[in-house]
């Protein structure tokens, strides 16, 4: 069981510092005791429910980590829900997955059919309980943790993970990246995201490292203050964090303890990486990982590596050769089992030899994975994957909109942005459809750039004319 692995690790490190946010901190001993108390609170809220399904929808905090451990100790299955999810998205997740309980922040817009049950233990997180649904999909017998990935059908896919997969993801990451008990990790990625979940949560506890949790926007000012205050040796964040750091004055002297910086989830601008390294002397690792299979690569020599590094322990990769890219396929010890709410979809991507076919195209160059493209049109804005179908459907439901297409374009800063082309009357104010989406979906799913047309340009087969749609956004002034 995963909780046995975690409990052994936590108890091995005693009074060493375990986890901290800006308001509080716990030693390993205190983390163990706090999660024991909180697990009793979880059980009290869900009497008689077997293997309760508990969603955790909150920002990074000590309370989040305590709750995660507490759910496992209570014999439950934690479902890590994106904090930014809107009420409708959370309702879809709750109904699709049959959540029994949602642990959330006071301000979280929770589904209206749930019963608010007050704070969990002494707080600060709140709880909302849901009636038992007897027709909910059965969990796989060995599932111990569930996380989500953007689907391509208008609903997020819920990935089921065995405890062993979660454990191996963390252990192989710690082993393959040289993480040790002397390290302190400052993590600004959300714990519900694979970037944080795999590099920072259990991996820190396995080796007895300190985990410092940043929340809020990862601006250079906030990150550098926390780095100095925590004396962290590792920094974990999305590319936007590093873009912010290089926009501000930054020098090696300001970050005396930092040894490694880690980015993933979205392409890292090579110029950003080079500027960061030049100014700090700290290697910036841009590793490859996917939600369904965990962290997959790490560069042994990040300053000279041509790509995203070599396979981590427990990972096998297949891709094209130099000059001949192919679909990237992976077999890993950290692989998920299936999608709880999309039967057969996960399995259809796994071959007879156990390799998972990713949506990435690339090649192995001197053993390092170099990505060259993608086979799907999943949109990636700053590390957040967005299902274009979900946003298009929401926009098409707005008053005055006859049709909608959502796509990813480069904005005038040279950064990926979410764009929409709406078929509507020319005097339609884009603020209306944006507000319509804002009431339904997470804020990052609201298109930043909108064009209004009489009809969506389509090919003779009826497919949207992507090239023509993209050209509509070419007129933005480039400010970089």
């Amino acid at each position: 069981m995963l909780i046995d692995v975690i409990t052994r690790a936590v108890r091995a490190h005693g009074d060493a510092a375990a986890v901290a946010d800006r308001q509080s901190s716990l030693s390993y001993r205190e983390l163990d005791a706090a999660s024991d108390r909180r697990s009793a609170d979880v059980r009290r809220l869900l009497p008689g429910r077997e293997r309760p399904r508990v969603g955790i929808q909150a920002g990074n905090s000590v309370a989040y980590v305590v709750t995660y451990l507490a759910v496992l100790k209570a014999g439950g299955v934690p479902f890590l829900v994106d904090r930014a999810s809107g009420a409708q998205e959370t309702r879809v997740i709750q109904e699709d997955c049959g959540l029994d309980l949602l642990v959330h922040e006071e301000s979280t817009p929770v589904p209206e059919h749930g019963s608010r049950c007050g704070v969990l233990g002494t707080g600060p997180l709140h709880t909302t309980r849901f009636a038992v649904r007897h027709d909910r999909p059965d969990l796989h017998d060995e599932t111990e943790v569930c996380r989500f990935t953007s689907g391509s059908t208008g609903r997020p896919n819920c990935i089921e993970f065995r405890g062993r997969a979660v454990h191996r993801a963390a252990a192989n990451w710690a082993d393959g990246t040289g993480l040790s008990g002397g390290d302190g990790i400052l993590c600004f990625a959300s714990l519900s995201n694979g970037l944080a979940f795999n590099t920072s949560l259990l991996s820190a506890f396995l080796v007895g490292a300190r985990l410092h949790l940043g929340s809020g926007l990862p601006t250079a000012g906030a990150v550098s203050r926390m780095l100095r205050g925590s004396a962290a040796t590792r920094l974990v964040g999305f590319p936007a964090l590093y873009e912010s750091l290089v926009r501000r004055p930054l020098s090696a002297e300001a970050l005396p303890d930092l040894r490694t910086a880690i980015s993933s989830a979205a392409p890292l601008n090579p110029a950003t990486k080079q500027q960061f390294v030049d100014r700090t002397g700290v290697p910036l690792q841009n590793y490859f990982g996917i939600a369904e299979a965990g962290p997959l690569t790490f560069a042994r020599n990040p300053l000279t590596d041509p790509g995203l590094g070599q396979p981590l322990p427990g990972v096998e990769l297949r891709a094209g050769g130099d000059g001949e890219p192919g679909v990237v396929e992976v077999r890993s010890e950290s692989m998920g089992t299936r999608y709880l709410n999309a039967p057969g979809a996960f399995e259809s991507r796994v071959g007879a030899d156990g390799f998972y076919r990713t949506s990435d195209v690339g090649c192995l160059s001197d053993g390092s994975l170099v990505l060259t493209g993608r086979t799907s049109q999943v949109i990636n804005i700053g590390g957040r994957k967005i299902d274009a179908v979900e946003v298009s459907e929401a926009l098409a439901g707005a008053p005055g909109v006859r049709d909608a297409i959502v796509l990813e374009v480069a904005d005038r800063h040279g950064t990926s942005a979410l764009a929409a082309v709406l078929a509507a009357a020319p005097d339609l104010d884009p603020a209306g459809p944006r507000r319509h989406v804002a009431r339904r979906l997470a804020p990052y799913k609201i298109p930043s750039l909108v064009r209004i047309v009489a009809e969506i340009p389509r090919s003779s087969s009826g497919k949207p004319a992507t090239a023509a749609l993209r050209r509509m956004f070419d007129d933005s002034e480039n400010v970089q």
Partner: protein
Amino acid sequence: MPASPDDIRSRIVRIVLGSAEGDLTERDLAAAGWSLPQVSYSSLAYIRMIDTVENELGVYLDPEEESDRFETIDSLVELVSQHLREVADA
């Protein structure tokens, strides 16, 4: 000479517009009651805006503790002005 409130406001508006992805105009902001959430200001735009304010005006904006004061141009101007006074008094 210290910047006047009007100077600070015009600089903040310029920075907010310049940090957006591209479509936002001062007219859009005014029509939305100078509210950034009402114009769907993105998190990436917020990060660019905060960086630029810190670079140009030399004040630190705390995205965790002060985020509720980033919501309108008026509250942003008030926050930045407060920090500028603190810097001047230090």
